[in-house]
Each structure stands twice: as structure tokens, then as C-alpha cells.
């Protein structure tokens, strides 16, 4: 049976684009941005649907297509992006998806803002109090992080802003159509307003710039990786999580951990391997559109 046409295939056919032009442009952008490019063979496999794309590949392809056509496109225009782990509120990842219509900016300055929006691949309103609590807790961390890292809002104030956004959402939930991008748009504007008010009240330090902090922008990709990793780790069982923390973060030896857990170093090693596998599996499922 013939394989159905991929969204990517349909899109480039419709625009009459050539694979070579796209991969050449992708190469040019990747050189400028210092990211890995995509080979023509890999691109052709993606087009046929015989390979899956990582977020970086999606980013580079969308950037190239946008650069060639000048059109405002999103990753979802070219790829079918799956929700993150089922049953959980989706948290950060995805590179370029859903620039929410900004199209994929070619410059790295905008890239991360797109990425923040791009994490939103599932977008339902919370159906009950429990779902709302999960959204508030998990998505709230992302929103707080945006306020803190992108706009340098102090942590306590960031939490207050996030709370206000959720309250405002509850008032408007019947006409907010795409919840998570909406929340991200809202926290951006709330943070900008916060900075404007602060500027009126007291002179701001250079790091309190209304425009997204350039340094933070440059580190945004790392930040997204970290937020994804944090979400994955928070979903592990306590034993796994604390063993990883002790070994990697606190740099405890296997022997010391074994002593504390009243077990053998070999068991700790085995535990580390299985926990890492679990992290890897969860991370992969959040990271790419498989």
C-alpha cells in the first residue's frame, strides 16, 4: 500500500519548492547559527515519512522554508507534532513548533521565544479541579521561568504574575481557544507591564530590560533542554530521582549511596542505569515527533 503523503511533502509540492534548495538554505542557516544542518538524504526520508525528525531538524527545515518563501509558517504546517507523555500536562520542549504564527524566525534572537511556544502540542482546557491543579503546578513552573529568565522578574513577583494570569484565564476560559500559547502570550505581556511599572517606580538595573534579555535568549535552548529534563525527572519515582541527584548533582560515590540505602554499590549502579533509561525514554517522547 502506498505511504500517505506527509505534511512536509504536501507543503513543498504546493509551493513548488525543491529539496535541494531547502537543504542548501538549511545549510546556510545552520552555519550562521552554529547548529547542525540536515543532509539531503535525511530530508528526502523525512519528506517520504520514512524517518522521524528531531526538534533541531524541524527547526532548521522550518527556518529554511520560511527563508525561501518569506511565508509565516509553523512547525505544525510541515510536521505532525504529537503531544508529550499522555496523561500529563505537556511541558517544555520542541524547538521551532508553533511560533504561533510568528513564523519561524531565522535569527537566533527570536528562536527561543518560538521554542517556548513550540512546546505546546496539546492544548485542552482543564476538565476538572485536579487537571487545573496539574496545569497550575506544572505549567506554572514554565510560566514563572519565562518571567524570571526572559524578563528578569524576581521569583516572588514572577509567582504573583503567574497566579494573576491563571485567575484572568479562569474568567475568560470560555473564549480562550488555545490555552497554553495563550498563557505564554499572557505571561510575556504581564512581565513587560511589570517592568514598565518598575521603571516608573525606581530606576532599573541593566538586567531589567523590557526587551527579552539577550543573554537569556542565547541560553534559551539550553534552558528548554533543562526544563524538559526537570519535568522528566520530577515524574520519576522518589528513589530513582534521589539516586540520580546524589550521584550526578551531589557527586556522591556509588559506595556512599549504597551505604545510605543499605545496599551494594552494584545495585546502585544497576539502579542508575535503569533510571537513566527511564529518563531517556520519557525525554525522547517529549522531545521529538515520533
Amino acid at each position, binding site marked *: 500500500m502506498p505511504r500517505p503523503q506527509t505534511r512536509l511533502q504536501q507543503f513543498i509540492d504546493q509551493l513548488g519548492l525543491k529539496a535541494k534548495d531547502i537543504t542548501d538554505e538549511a545549510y546556510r542557516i545552520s552555519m550562521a547559527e552554529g547548529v547542525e544542518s540536515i543532509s539531503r538524504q535525511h530530508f528526502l526520508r523525512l519528506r517520504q515519512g520514512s524517518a522521524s525528525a528531531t526538534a533541531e531538524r524541524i527547526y532548521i527545515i522550518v527556518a529554511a522554508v520560511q527563508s525561501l518563501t518569506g511565508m509565516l509558517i509553523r512547525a505544525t504546517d510541515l510536521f505532525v507534532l504529537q503531544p508529550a507523555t499522555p496523561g500529563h500536562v505537556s511541558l517544555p520542549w520542541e524547538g521551532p513548533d508553533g511560533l504561533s504564527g510568528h513564523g519561524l524566525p531565522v535569527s537566533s534572537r527570536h528562536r527561543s521565544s518560538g521554542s517556548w511556544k513550540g512546546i505546546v502540542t496539546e492544548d485542552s482546557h482543564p476538565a476538572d479541579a485536579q487537571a487545573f491543579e496539574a496545569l497550575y503546578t506544572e505549567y506554572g513552573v514554565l510560566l514563572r521561568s519565562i518571567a524570571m529568565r526572559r524578563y528578569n522578574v524576581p521569583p516572588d513577583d514572577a509567582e504573583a504574575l503567574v497566579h494573576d494570569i491563571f485567575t484572568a484565564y479562569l474568567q475568560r476560559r470560555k473564549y480562550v481557544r488555545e490555552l497554553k500559547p495563550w498563557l505564554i502570550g499572557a505571561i510575556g505581556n504581564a512581565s513587560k507591564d511589570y517592568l514598565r511599572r518598575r521603571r516608573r517606580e525606581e530606576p532599573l538595573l541593566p538586567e531589567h530590560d523590557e526587551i527579552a534579555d539577550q543573554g537569556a535568549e542565547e541560553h534559551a535552548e539550553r534552558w528548554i533542554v533543562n526544563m524538559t529534563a526537570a519535568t522528566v525527572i520530577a515524574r520519576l519515582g522518589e528513589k530513582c530521582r534521589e539516586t540520580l541527584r546524589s550521584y550526578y548533582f551531589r557527586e556522591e560515590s556509588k559506595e556512599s549511596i549504597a551505604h545510605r540505602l543499605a545496599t551494594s554499590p552494584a545495585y546502585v549502579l544497576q539502579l542508575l542505569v535503569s533510571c537513566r533509561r527511564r529518563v*531517556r525514554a520519557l525525554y525522547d517522547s517529549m522531545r521529538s515527533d515520533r
Partner: protein
Amino acid sequence: MTRHYDDDELSDYALAPSLDPGREAIEQHVAACAACRTRLQIAQELEEAFRDDEVWGAVDLLLTRPQRLEAARAEYARIEREDAEAEALLSPLLKSPLRFRGAEIDTDSRFHTGAVVRNLCLAAHARHEKQPQFSLVITNAACRIALQLPKGGTERRAVLALAVRERANAFRYLGRFAEGLKSLDDAEKLFDQSPGTDPFDLAIVSYIRATIYLKSGRAAEGLPLAKEAAEVFREYGDRSRELAAVMAEAVCLTYTGHPNEAAETFERVALIARATEQPEILARALQNAGEAYLAASNHEQATPRLIEALALFDNLALATERTRSVWKLASARAAEGALHEAAEQLDRVRAELAELGLTNDAALATLEWAEVMLALGESSGVAERCAAIAVDFETEGMLRNARIALAYLQEALRAGDATPDVVRHVRAYLTEIPNRPAAAFVRPA
């Protein structure tokens, strides 16, 4: 090529490359193998993340109950409860305008809650299209209730803003544009309580204002508003509203005489509609893009858009739109110089449009047919067909102006002075009447 490495091996290598006994082999393999390179990169990302204090800080945040969670839960529970109560109170009343009016809910304190106002706004929103008078009655009640909510709280101002905006929408559907614009002025001032969400709410105001301008012959003023609204909707990731705003932008461009830009903008609409799998909007966008290309004398671009629109309308079983696509394809054939074929198609379309009850479209198609016939030098039957043209406009003034234009054409046909240009002039005038209802007909120079 050597064998592929599994994730455990790559993780071990990522942990301490210099200590890995198979380092050289791994590095050689990874240099040549893109799949392993990607997997190694992920392993390295995770190795770094495991050691990063930011990651563990975020883990702890995720595991800690947020300080204001209790307050958020209480707010959620309150709004849920109030919404349910409001729905129970209102749903029997909203079944009929008579029952709703009779209940006089704005004088009954049971209805004086923010949730009732929100619920009324939703109810009105759902009725604008089919029961615009009723939706106005509902929004008026919503405004009166909002004004009676306790002063000082933020809820009063927030729900009043929603009610006033919805009232403007009701006026828009009723064609009471001046009152609609006045309500929008008021709504604009009221959206000033929530910096995170005000831009979004104001974008909805701008969008409604743009559509009112569009419908009242002020497309040039609507254009920047539609653009602005589209930008904000994009910022908030609201693709369906963005789509509507871009569509409004494209229509503004059409009405302000920028067919090329309009066509490009309709193409943007089509792109979004295609990506979001909205076939009806896609079909309409393609149809409009086709028409804009025709207006820009770019029939080569027009034809494929119109053909796709036709196929989509066929699938959607939208007979009137399908006929309009056939009509515009006939226009494209005429523009390409295939006049005989175009005349035959236009003759069929004219009859179909009349059969569908689309009087004005049938009139315009008849005029286009007449134009093509005169261009072919075949004037027989043209005067008779044109004499039978009927038009139907909302106001007496528009109808009178249309009849003056048609009478002029009749006179020219009888005198043998009618040329394709004369017919085109009359047709262009009739096309523009809904957008410029007060403009009198001027004979061609």
C-alpha cells in the same frame, strides 16, 4: 562502518569520554553515523542536565506545591460553582426571547453575579448570527447586571468590559455600526485591569472594529486594525482568531484597491487554513485569492486557486459557493481571451445563480456575459437579457442608484452605443454599491 552503539554505551561515554576504553571507536563511528550522533547529543544533554543546579531547582519547584495553589484552587472552585449556578438559572430563560424579556433578570438579585454576565455574553455570542435582536437584548441585560455588581472589586470592571464588547458585536450584526463603534470605545477603556490579558481582549475589540469599518465603507481605517489584531492573536497562539483577522486584512486590501496585496494575504489565510485543516475557510480563501488575482489581471495565478476552491466547495456540498467558483473561472477564461468558452460558461452560471436566488450575483454574471458577447461582436439577445436584469438591495437609495445605472445601459444598448467598456463600467458600479451605498452613478466619460 562499525556497529551502532546503544544508549547505555553512549551515556557511559558522555559521562566521561576520556575514561571510556572504546573512546576512539565511538568517536569514529559517531563522526560517520548521524543517528548515533543525534543520540549521543541527547545523552550529553542529559548528562549536563543531571549536573545542573537549574534543573534540580526546577525539579524541586515542580515537586513543591506552589505558594498560591490553595488560592488558585479556591478561585477555580468558586468560578466553577458560580458558572454552574448561572447556567442553571439562565438556560430555561434563554430558550425564548419572550421568556427572557419576561424574567427581567436585571431586577432579580439572584442573577447579579459575574458568572451570569459571562454566561449571558456567551449566550449572546452564540446567537448573533441567527437571532441578532435577541443577542442585543441579552447583552443589554448583561451590561445592566454588570453595572449592579459590587463596586471596588476587579470582577465588576472585567465582566462589564466583556458585556460592552459583546454588545458592540450585537450592534455589528444588526448593522447599527455607529452604536457598535461607541460600545467599542467604552470596552476599550474598560480593559485595563489585567496587563497579561488586556492586549488579547483589546485585539478582539480591534478586530470587531475592523469588521465594522469594512462593512461601512471605511476599509482603509480597518486595515491597520485587522493587521494589529492578527499580530496579537499570533502572539497568544490563537490561530483561529488570527485567521479571521488576516481574512479581514485581506478583504480590507481588496476594498482599498490593492488586489495584489489582497491576493497574497488570502494566500496566507489559505496556508493557515490548510495547516489547521479547515476546508471551508481554505476554500473561501482560495476563492478570494483567485478573485483578487483576477482583479490584478493575473489570471494565471487565479485559475489554479479557483479550481481548487471549486473542488473543495463540491466536497463540502456548498452549492452557491461552487457556482461562484465556476463563475470566476469563466471570468478567468474571458481574461485569457477564450471568449466563446467564457460566454457559454457565463450563460450557464447566470441561470444557476438566478435559480439559487442570488439575484445580484445573477445580475452581475449577466452583465459579464453581455460584456463578453459585445467583445465577440455578437450583440443579438444582449439587450433583451439586460432588460430582464433584476437587482435587490437593502435600501431604497441603493436600489434607485442601481436602476439608474441599468437604465443607462439599456439606453446605450438601444442606441447601439454599448461597448464592452460601457457594460464593465455599469458592472463595476453595481459591484461597489454595497460598499459605497451613497455613491451616485456617473456615466462613463
